């Protein structure tokens, strides 16, 4: 099989869509109430060093994904165990995204359609996409990216006309603690979820810069999150915002352009669909890729279908209800610590040490 490549731009687009994927509709945490936009900014700043660390891991071993890196750094046995951790994380993330997806659709519109059907369709599209290689995913993403960007910019501009600036005051009414609390939530979901990309960016074209992808992806994706959060607070205001599971959807439903052009909320759903598809595909890709590496097979594609079906099966019963799903967001921030912070840190330190110690195997640095 010829080596597949994605361009820097495609990688960037993937990352942006990945970041705004589910957060777009689920909304960022409301711990900080009308200051949650501050949380977003803080979260971006918090995530910056972490994401640079991820980029460093990618950069140290060009052309090798995280599983290969782990394998190389920790040896066979330990490497496999650690890889398994990552595979589980990617898999679990995929399950969560799929479940979010189907919950959202079945809540807003397809109330009677069984959720497993929605999940199946999503997963089949994901399998189809990744089966065509990561290149197809990259091309598709950068095509969709433009559409998504246009929709989001349009929505934000329209939301601006409905904004009530009194909703933002007073700033820091509840103190600084909730802001930090909220910032950490946003850090773990979705910003640091980009750890997944350590398995994707190894497909970057030689010469492309992984730092650039991470850096720009964070700023653009975070910027979009910020714009959406600002729009939600400005249009809806507290306390109504805190009563809603899907604030962006409600926000957009309030936008009117004249008497005829109204009810743009379907656009939010469309954007979510597109971003969610990208996110699911990336998770599928990572899971299958990791599994293939653990079992020493070269073609991850053959494993896509069973992994996807397993995703659906788990998504069916992972939460008993929607409330449980949203409650779990609070657990998730702690659950994700080892995958998002501890393991990458460990890998990075060991990798640097290994490279320093064995000059022979070192990769030339630029």
């Amino acid at each position: 099989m010829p080596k597949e490549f994605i361009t820097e731009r495609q990688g960037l687009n993937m990352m942006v869509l990945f970041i705004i994927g589910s957060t777009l509709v689920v909304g960022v945490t409301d711990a900080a109430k009308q200051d949650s936009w501050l949380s977003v900014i803080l979260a971006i700043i918090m995530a910056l060093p972490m994401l640079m660390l991820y980029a460093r891991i990618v950069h140290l071993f060009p052309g090798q994904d995280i599983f290969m890196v782990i394998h190389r750094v920790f040896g066979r046995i330990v490497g496999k165990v650690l890889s398994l951790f990552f595979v589980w994380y990617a898999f679990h993330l995929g399950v969560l995204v799929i479940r979010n997806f189907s919950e959202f659709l079945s809540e807003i519109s397809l109330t009677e359609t069984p959720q497993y059907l929605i999940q199946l369709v999503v997963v089949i599209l994901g399998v189809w996409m990744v089966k065509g290689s990561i290149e197809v995913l990259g091309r598709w993403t950068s095509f969709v990216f433009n559409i998504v960007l246009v929709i989001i910019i349009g929505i934000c501009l329209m939301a601006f006309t409905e904004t009530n600036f009194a909703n933002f005051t007073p700033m820091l009414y509840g103190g600084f603690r909730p802001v930090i609390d909220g910032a950490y939530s946003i850090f773990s979901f979705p910003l640091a979820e980009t750890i997944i990309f350590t398995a994707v960016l190894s497909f970057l074209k030689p010469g492309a810069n992984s730092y650039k992808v991470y850096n720009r992806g964070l700023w653009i994706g975070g910027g979009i999150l910020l714009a959406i959060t600002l729009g939600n607070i400005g249009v809806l205001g507290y306390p109504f915002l805190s009563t809603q599971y899907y604030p962006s959807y409600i926000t957009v439903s309030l936008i009117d352009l004249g008497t005829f052009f109204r009810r743009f909320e379907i656009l939010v759903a469309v954007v979510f669909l597109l971003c969610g598809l990208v996110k699911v595909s990336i998770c599928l890709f990572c899971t299958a890729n990791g599994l293939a590496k653990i079992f020493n097979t070269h073609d991850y594609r053959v494993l896509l279908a069973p992994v996807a079906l397993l995703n659906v099966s788990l998504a069916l019963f992972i939460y008993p209800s929607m409330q449980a799903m949203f409650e779990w967001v609070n657990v998730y921030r702690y659950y994700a610590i080892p995958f998002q912070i501890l393991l990458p840190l460990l890998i990075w330190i060991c990798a640097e040490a290994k490279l320093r110690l064995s000059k022979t195997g070192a990769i030339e640095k630029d």
Partner: protein
Amino acid sequence: MYKGFSEENNWTESLQQNEALLRELFKNDDTIIYRHFENQFNSDLKFAAIFSSGIVNNEIINENIILPIVANNIRLTDKVKLIDVLKNQIIISNDITKTRELDNIIQAILNGNTVLLHDGASEALIINSKDWPTRVISEPENEKGSLGPREGFTESLLINLAMVKRKLKTHELKFKFRVLGSRSQTKICICYIEGLANEAILAELETRLDKIHLDGILDANYIVEFIKDAPLSLFKTVGNTERPDVVAGKLLEGRIALILDGTPVAITLPYLFVEYFQTNDDYYNSFFIASITRIIRLFSFILTISAPAVFLALTAFHQEIIPEPLLLSISLSRQRVPFPTIIEALILGLVFESMREAGVRASSNIGTSLSIVGALILGQAAVDAHFFSAPMLIIVGFTVVAGLMFPKLSGASMILRLILLFFAALMGIYGYIFALSGLFIHLFQIRSFGVPYMSPLNSLNFQDLKDTIIRAPWWYMEYRPKFIGALNRIRQSNGDRKLEKKLR
């Protein structure tokens, strides 16, 4: 081929025997004429001209073959054989070969050449006397343009090549001949411009052509289905055109053309998705108008495949999106309509498609009355009788009209429309988006001779978009498309008309 007959020993020096052999081969074919004649000065010199009537030029045979042989006083010397004398001194023809291969002789006769035998020679002369009946060069019906050259390909390969040659007078323009089809013996010609066409694509094309084993090739599509990528796809990964100017344009972009004998259609490859939306008229019109019409075409394509699906999704799933006045009027018009919307869409789609097909097949006089009966009477009556609702009729009617803009896509758009409709009926607008995503995944997956099918569209950067969604001015298109003409990217100098200068 004909192995049983081409045994060496069957061909003798005796005219009678040879003729008998040919008569045996062409048994029951009364179009083959065996014309015997002698030299008027030496009646021992007996000749026979064998040709297939109808595809030969009688004048050539009479004036240039029979007349010189009969009228000239042929002097024979020992040194020179009679057949060489004939070839070099007597017969007036620009294309004359000597052969003793039975295969060649048979082919020559079938191709409209004249075979001259003479008693006492074990060789025959093949004299070019082809005169196939050809159609006059006319404007192609299916690819009309309001501006630009009016000529279209005919069924004759050489005339077609001549038309291409006239447009590109360069020695770099190469024509490679090949014969395909064991029975039809169709000549095909691979045209390309050396230095522009990608060698790898050329090699790939040759290997694919090598793999074809068909007995008859009557149209370009026979080959297309063999050589195209993604053979199960709805989309064409190999283009076709009836216009020499289009072929010349594609050759200049570094593409390769395949011209077949017997069909007025040339194949161009690689073929990309955007080419559906480029017409030759675009390049002859002002670039503003061309860009606008191209954008309209693109939108029409999206509309033609998705209008019924979106309408169905909105009216059957997402009534909340429809503004109240529209909702009420749609609802009003659907009162007492017996069919569900999806069935309505399917039936109406079928009706319109059959009407379109009837319009293609029927003679042109009936066509107008067909449209009157179909569109006016049927449509009006169906709405009045509360058989179908007026909005659905409008949507489907518009869909079909918009579909007429893409004769090359009509089949694909019909099927796509159906698939999207099914998904819209399953999950509303979300199903539609899913199906559309699937469509794009498919489009991004396929390639045409190694070139990604959606090539310039997948990275929407301006350099590559000059000739896709819009048609940039000629002086601004300095480069060839990157993905094809990578060998020699600079198309032209900008004619001293930089955009920056223009804008000043």
